[in-house]
């Protein structure tokens, strides 16, 4: 049996397969479909300081081999999260990573501070980069100095592993990733969605209420892989690959390019057990290839 464990800072995951924030709810939505404890971990939907209603409909639109979304981070707020969502999550044995967002670096730190007393949170992921929030989540990760400041502010209030999630909608993701690593992030995750747009030619209206939204799904996978590869070469902390990963083969591309772990997002909407299938596929691949552990594969790209 191959040892699929990976280290993300002080956190040890049983395997490198996580679910992506905003695509897996708070876990319970998927509990009917498979044993969630088979996953390396779950990354929750974003939690903010105050409750947010989210964006008006239409919020989603199907595109070639992908989809656009503009959900707007609806969530019950951190205090209700603790009461309503945490009890189920805390019943799981898999690692639970809580994704957080704020309108300012102070607010990021406040959400994390509010979660510090909750026992069992495996790590935090900082959502700098949701393109669909008016106050401009995007701005946090499009400027290296601001991005680093947010990471530093959160770093100051927690010793738990800290993952900074990066947007691809920037000139140099490598530079921003580097700044966050220097500011104390334990890992980077990339990519969030790509800004995209679609128009209904009959009504001449945009397909999303917010006009533009975030593109995800298989369509973005090659873009994501290139960004992850860029980050891997720029930082020495683990990089978690996200973007259109639906199968073990897809995940292997990221791991060979140097990713420590992967997140499964949009694929889980269509095949609820997609992340489990990736775990099983990785196990099969490693057995067939006679690999003792994932380190033998990670970053093994032949140039």
């Amino acid at each position: 049996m191959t040892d699929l464990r990976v280290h993300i800072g002080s956190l040890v995951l049983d395997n490198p397969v996580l679910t992506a924030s905003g695509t897996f709810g708070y876990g319970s939505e998927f509990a009917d479909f498979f044993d969630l404890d088979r996953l390396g971990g779950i990354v929750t939907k974003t939690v903010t300081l105050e409750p947010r209603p989210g964006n008006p409909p239409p919020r989603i639109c199907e595109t070639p081999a992908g989809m656009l979304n503009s959900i707007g981070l609806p969530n019950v707020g951190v205090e209700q999260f603790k009461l309503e969502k945490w009890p189920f999550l805390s019943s799981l044995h898999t690692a639970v990573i809580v994704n957080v967002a704020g309108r300012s670096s102070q607010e990021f730190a406040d959400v994390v501070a509010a979660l510090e007393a909750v026992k069992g949170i495996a790590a935090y992921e900082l959502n700098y980069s949701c393109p669909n929030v008016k106050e401009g989540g995007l701005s946090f990760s499009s400027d290296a100095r601001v991005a680093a400041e947010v990471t530093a502010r959160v770093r100051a209030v927690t010793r738990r592993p800290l993952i900074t999630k990066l947007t691809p909608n920037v000139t140099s993701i490598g530079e921003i990733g580097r700044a966050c690593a220097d500011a104390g992030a334990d890992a980077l995750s990339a990519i969030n969605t790509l800004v995209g747009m679609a128009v209904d030619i009959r009504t001449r209206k945009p397909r999303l209420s917010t006009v533009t939204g975030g593109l995800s799904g298989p369509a973005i996978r090659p873009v994501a892989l290139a960004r992850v590869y860029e980050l891997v070469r720029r930082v020495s902390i683990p990089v978690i690959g996200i973007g259109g990963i639906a199968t073990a083969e897809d995940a292997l591309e990221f791991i060979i390019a140097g990713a420590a772990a992967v997140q499964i997002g949009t694929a889980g909407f269509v095949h609820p057990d997609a992340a489990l299938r990736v775990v099983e596929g990785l196990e099969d691949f490693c057995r067939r290839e006679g690999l003792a552990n994932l380190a033998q594969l990670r970053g093994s790209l032949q140039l």
Partner: protein
Amino acid sequence: MSKSVLQLPVIERAEAARQVVRLTLQAPEWARAARAGHFINLLVPGRRDLLWRRPFSVHRADRSRGTIDLLVARMGRGSESLAECAPGDHLDAIGLLGNCFPFDPGLHEIIMVAGGIGIAPFDLLLQDVQGFSCKKSLFYGARSAGDLCRSTLWAESGAEVHLTTEDGSTGSRGLVQDELRRYLGSSANHAGRVIYGCGPTPMLAALREMALALGIKGYVTVENRMACGFGACVGCAVELAEARRDGQKYLLACKDGPVFPIEEILFHD
């Protein structure tokens, strides 16, 4: 009943109306559990370019045979492909999803209002209420006579059927909501009546207005676009008529619905 992913054999395929195909699928557990309003989410076979599944109301359930029927209207690339399925094919389905129309045995009259493919859940509703003595009225409108999905259940269940077509080729000429308005206008006492609606947004908006004006209880089922169907994508938001005290402004069609009390939500084009 817990949700699951099943591979359902297609047992029969029939033309139900112009551009509408009725598929019969083998699904014994779902046939037993399905109530009007429930839906399943189907993967489009052979179309990997189409990312999402396509949601379909359970149209009918044959509990002894263990089958469910769906109505597949040819609306776009996904439904076109699904309408071409043949007996022997298997469809990858997630179900059962959503809630169902509430039914109170003490009601005097249930008034079903269907526009176009919105007829889909009402066969199952008629099945569900067959043993009850309440009056069953079905208002059903389509573009033209050839677009109506007729059903043997209408006669079997003793429903009073009011058909409308936009071109007047069958039943009254005009829109189904106008026919309903005339019907409701002919009596002043609406106690014990309930309206169940499924159809295009303008029809639902008209039903809402009528139900509120006349003080009739009503429920509608909505068919929003959804990426998952089980509450994860949060894409199928439906706007609440009044924001909740905690600031909540939207519900999810897939998880909180697809059936909603008519006064609770707003309809936008």
